[in-house]
C-alpha cells in the first residue's frame, strides 16, 4: 500500500485488504524498494495536493520507479482513483483522466458493469456482473485517442464501465482498464469503500481484494506455497490466514 503525501484512502484500502485475508504493508513515497510485497495498491487521494494534474507529481516519487519495474515484471498493481491517475501518468496504462465534464467533484454510489473478469484483480467477478461501488473524483473523465480506445475494446482491456447516467464524461463510459497481461488495473471508482455495508454501499468491492489472492496463489511457484491453502472463507484478520500474501 503506497502512501504519498496527500493519499487519503490508504487506510480504507488497508482495511479492505485485511478483510480479504491478506496483510497490508505500508510503503512510503520516498521508499526505494518494495519490501518484498506480492502486489501493490496505489490508493485514492490527492497526492502532493494534485494541483497541477492528478498524479503528475506522484509519478516522480522514488517508489514509483520500483512500482513501474515490478508491474512490467508482472506484479499485480491496482491503482484506485488517484492511483489510476498515477498509473496513466506513469504510462503503465494508456490514456489520461481529465476534469469531469460537469466540472464538479462528484461523490456518489455508482453502478458498474464488470467487463473483464480475468484480470488479477477481477477473477472473483463474473463477466457482465453489475456491482455498486463509490465513485468520487474531480478528474475522472477517461480519455484516449480513438486508436487506443479501439484497441482497448478490441483486446478486452476495458475492466469496468459505468451504468446509468454519465457520472464524469469518460469516453465509452470507461471506469477501469487493464494491461494485456491483466496484472495492472486502473479503476476510477473505489472498491475499498464497498467492503462492509455499515460504512458503504454494500460489499460489491471486496472481490477486487480477494481476486488478487487467488491469482497470486495460482501463479505462485510450488516452493513458496509452503503453507496449505486455507479452508473456508478468509478470516477477518490477515495474520491468522494461511495465505502468505503480503500487499
Amino acid at each position, binding site marked *: 500500500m503506497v502512501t504519498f*503525501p*496527500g493519499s*487519503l*484512502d490508504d*487506510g*480504507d484500502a488497508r*482495511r479492505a485488504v485485511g478483510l480479504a485475508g491478506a496483510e497490508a504493508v505500508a510503503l512510503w513515497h520516498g521508499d526505494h524498494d518494495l519490501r518484498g510485497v506480492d502486489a501493490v495498491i496505489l490508493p485514492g*487521494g*490527492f497526492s*502532493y*495536493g*494534485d*494541483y497541477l494534474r492528478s498524479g503528475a507529481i506522484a509519478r516522480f516519487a522514488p517508489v514509483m520507479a520500483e512500482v513501474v519495474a515490478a508491474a512490467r515484471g508482472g506484479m499485480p498493481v491496482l491503482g484506485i482513483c488517484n492511483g489510476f491517475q498515477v498509473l496513466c501518468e506513469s504510462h503503465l496504462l494508456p490514456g489520461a483522466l481529465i476534469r469531469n465534464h*460537469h466540472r*464538479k*467533484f*462528484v*461523490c*456518489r454510489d455508482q453502478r458498474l458493469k464488470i467487463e473483464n473478469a480475468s484480470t488479477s484483480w477481477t477473477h472473483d467477478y463474473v463477466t457482465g456482473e453489475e456491482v455498486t461501488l*463509490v465513485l*468520487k473524483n*474531480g478528474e475522472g473523465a477517461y480519455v484516449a485517442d480513438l486508436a487506443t480506445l479501439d484497441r482497448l475494446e478490441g483486446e478486452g482491456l476495458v475492466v469496468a464501465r459505468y451504468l446509468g447516467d454519465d457520472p464524469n464524461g469518460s469516453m465509452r463510459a470507461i471506469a477501469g482498464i487493464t494491461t494485456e497481461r491483466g496484472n495492472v488495473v486502473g479503476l476510477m471508482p*473505489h472498491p*475499498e*469503500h464497498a467492503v462492509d455495508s*455499515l*460504512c*458503504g454501499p454494500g460489499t460489491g468491492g471486496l472481490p477486487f481484494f480477494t481476486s488478487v489472492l487467488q491469482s497470486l496463489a495460482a501463479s505462485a511457484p510450488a516452493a513458496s506455497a509452503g503453507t496449505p491453502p486455507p479452508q473456508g472463507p478468509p478470516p477477518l484478520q490477515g495474520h491468522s490466514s494461511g495465505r502468505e500474501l503480503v500487499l
Partner: protein
Amino acid sequence: MTETQTRQLDTVAHAQEHPDVAQPWAELGLKSDEEAHLREILGRRPTSSELAMYSVMWSEHCSYKSSKVHLRRFGEQVTDAMRKHLMVGIGENAGVVDIGQGYAVTFKVESHNHPSYIEPYQGAATGVGGIVRDILSMGARPVAVMDALRFGPLEAPDTQRVLPGVVAGVGGYGNCLGLPNIGGETVFDPSYAGNPLVNALCVGVMRHEDIHLANASGTGNQIILYGATTGGDGIGGVSILASEAFDTQGSARRPSVQVGDPFMEKLLIECTLEVFAEHLVAGIQDLGGAGLSCATSELASAGDGGMHVWLDRVPLRDESLAPEEILMSESQERMMAVVEPAHVSRFLEICAKWDVDATVIGEVTDTGRLVIEWYGDTVVDVPPRTVASEGPVYERPFARPIWQDSLQAGDASTLPRPTTGEGLRATVLQLVASPNLCDKSWITNQYDRYVQGNTVLAQPEDAGILRVDEQSGLGIAVSTDCNGRFAKLDPFTGAQLALAESYRNVATAGARPLAVTDCLNFGSPEDPDVMWQFAEATRGLSQGCEALGIPVTGGNVSFYNQTGAEPILPTPVVGVLGVIDDVTRRTPIGFTTEGQQIYLLGTTRDELSGSEWAHVAHGHLGGLPPVVDLEMEAQLADLLINASRDGLIDAAHDLADGGLAQALVESCLRYDVGARVWLPDELDPFVALFSESTARVIVAVPRSEEVRFTDMCAARRFPHVRMGVTDGRGDDAVLEVQECFSVSLAELRAAWSATLPTAFDD
C-alpha cells in the same frame, strides 16, 4: 528588506520620543474611548505594530466585546448533570466531551461569512481550514466536517455566483484533507442576499490523555512557528498603517483575501499529530483570525505571562511585508507550538519529515510582557492579557423592536389553505420542490462522505454518524440546525427550537445527545433591535441547554451580517453532538421494508406561522413559532434511543420544516419504498400534513416488534398513533394519503430532485 529599512521604523523608543504622531485609529475600527484606554495601558501612544495588534484583537470578531456579557450565561448555567461528560468547557479553542471507553471528542462550529461573500471558493475553503486547525490544536485528530449554509433567494444572480463557489470551496478543502462531510444545512432566504452565511463545523477524536491546551508556560520554552510561510493575506485593513505611517508605496494594495492550501494543511495535521504522539508539545495554538497577534498574545496570557518574539525570523512569502503586516497576516495553514528546549530538535526533525517549515521565533519569559523585536529594535512591549483577554467589553443597549408585536400579530391563520385532496397533493409537490426542502444532493455529491471508511450515516440523514472504535462500535452523531424565520418571530423560542431540532435529530438517529456548539449569526450589535435578538437567543439557548442537561462547549459569534440597514434573519445555528454505543444500531431515515407499521410520535397542533408552507405558498412571515416543549423532547429522545438499542424500529425521521408531508416523502424516496397512510380523524388534513409542531417523529416498526414498541410508548405515556404502513417499492411505489390523494414516488422524485440542478447546471 529594502523597502522596510528605508522607512522609519516605529519602535517603542520612537513612540516615546514622538508622542504626537497621527495614527489611523478610526480606520482600524477603534473608538476614541478605546484609544484612550490603550494609551492608559501603555502609558504612551502605541507603536504602529502595537496599534495593529490591539485594533485587530479588540475587534468584534476577536474580542467578543458586544457578546461577552451574554455568552457568560453559557458558562454560568453549567449544572452537575452537564458537567458529567465535560472534560474541557467553554473558553478553550474547542470544548471536549467524554464519550466513554477512554475516548474524548471535541467539536466546534465557526463562521466564515464575510470572506465567503467576497471570494466564495477561498472564503469557504479557508473557513473549513480554520475550524480544522482549531480542533487539531486541542490534540485531536479531525475526523469529519459539516457545513451550515445560508444564501439569498435561489434565483438571485448573486446566489448563482456565491453558492457554487462556496460549495466547491467546502468540498475542495475538506475532500483534499480526507475528512468526510457528514451533514449540514442549506437554507435560502432573501435576508441572506448580499450576506451569505458559511458556518463550518469540525469534529475531532482523541484519547483522554491527549488533550492539549493553548498556553505558553515554562520560562525558556521555545516558540515554534510551523506550517506555511507568511504572506500578505487578509491584511487589507492594517495596510493603512504601513502605508499611511510610512509611505504610500505598495502595501496599501495588499490583498485582503486568504487563499487556502489544503495539501499543506493535510501535512500540518499529520505532522502535528506526530509531535503530539511523541509528547514534544507543552502548548499549542492555531493561527486563524488576527494571525500572530492572536497566537502570541493568547499563548502568553494563558501561560506564565511573558514571551519574547523575534519577528524578523518569521519566514515570509513576501519580503516586503512590514512588521505590522506580519503581525496581522492571516496566512493560512500555520500553527504555533511551545516546546521545551530539549525537544526542539526532534520537533524540527518531524516537521522536516513532513516537508513542513518550522522556525523558532521566540521564547517564554517571566517578565509578564509580550516583547516583539524587529531586527534588534523593540516594536511591541505590552502586557499580553490586555491584548488577548482584557479588551473592551460593552453592555450594548438593546430593546424589543417596535415591530415585534405587529410581526407576531400577523399570524398564518388567515392565509388561504388547500382543502381538497387535489389541493393538498399540489401543495406537497410544490413544497418538496421548494429551495429549502428540495433534494440537496447537487451540493452534497460534491463532498466526499466515504473517506476514512467510518461514515455510518451522512446526508440526507437526520444526523451524521461516525464510527469511532472499530472493535466496540462506539460512535458519535452530529446534527446542525436553525430555523431563522422562527428566530425572527421570537428569538428566545427560535434558539430553543434550533436546539430542540438538532437534539431531536441526533436522538432520532439513535444517539444520546451530550453537548452543544453554536454559531450565532446576527446583524449589527450597534442596532438595539439586533442586540435584543441576540440577548434573547442566548438566553433561550442557555436555558434550553440547562433544561436538556447538555452544555454549550464552544462556538462562535458573527455580527454585522447585514446589507445596508437590513439585518439577516437572526440565525443561531446549533450543533448537537451525541454518542452511540454501537453504531450498527443507528436508525436511518429511509423506509427499507414493505409491510412495516408507520407510527407518528408526539402531538400535532395547528402551528403554521413561520412554517415552510407559509413561506413557500404565501411568502408570509408572521405570528408565533411553534411551541417548544423540552420536557417532551427529552422523553422522545429517550424513547428513540431505547427503541433503537432494543431493535424495535427500522427507520425514524424527525418532523421539522415541511411537517409530516415532507418527512414521509423523504423516508419514502430514500430507498424507493412507498407508504399508505391515514390521517388522524381529529385533525384537519392540511394541519396534519403541514404543521410544524415540535417533538414529533415518524418511525417504521417491523410487525414483529409492534407490541413491544407500543408497550414502550404506553409505559412512558408518550403520544403515539399508528398512521400507516410501508407498501410497494421501486417504479410503481406511491405515497397514498387515504381519502386525500395519492402521488407516485417517481413524480415526487422528479419534483424534489430537479430544483438545484435546474438552477445551477448550464
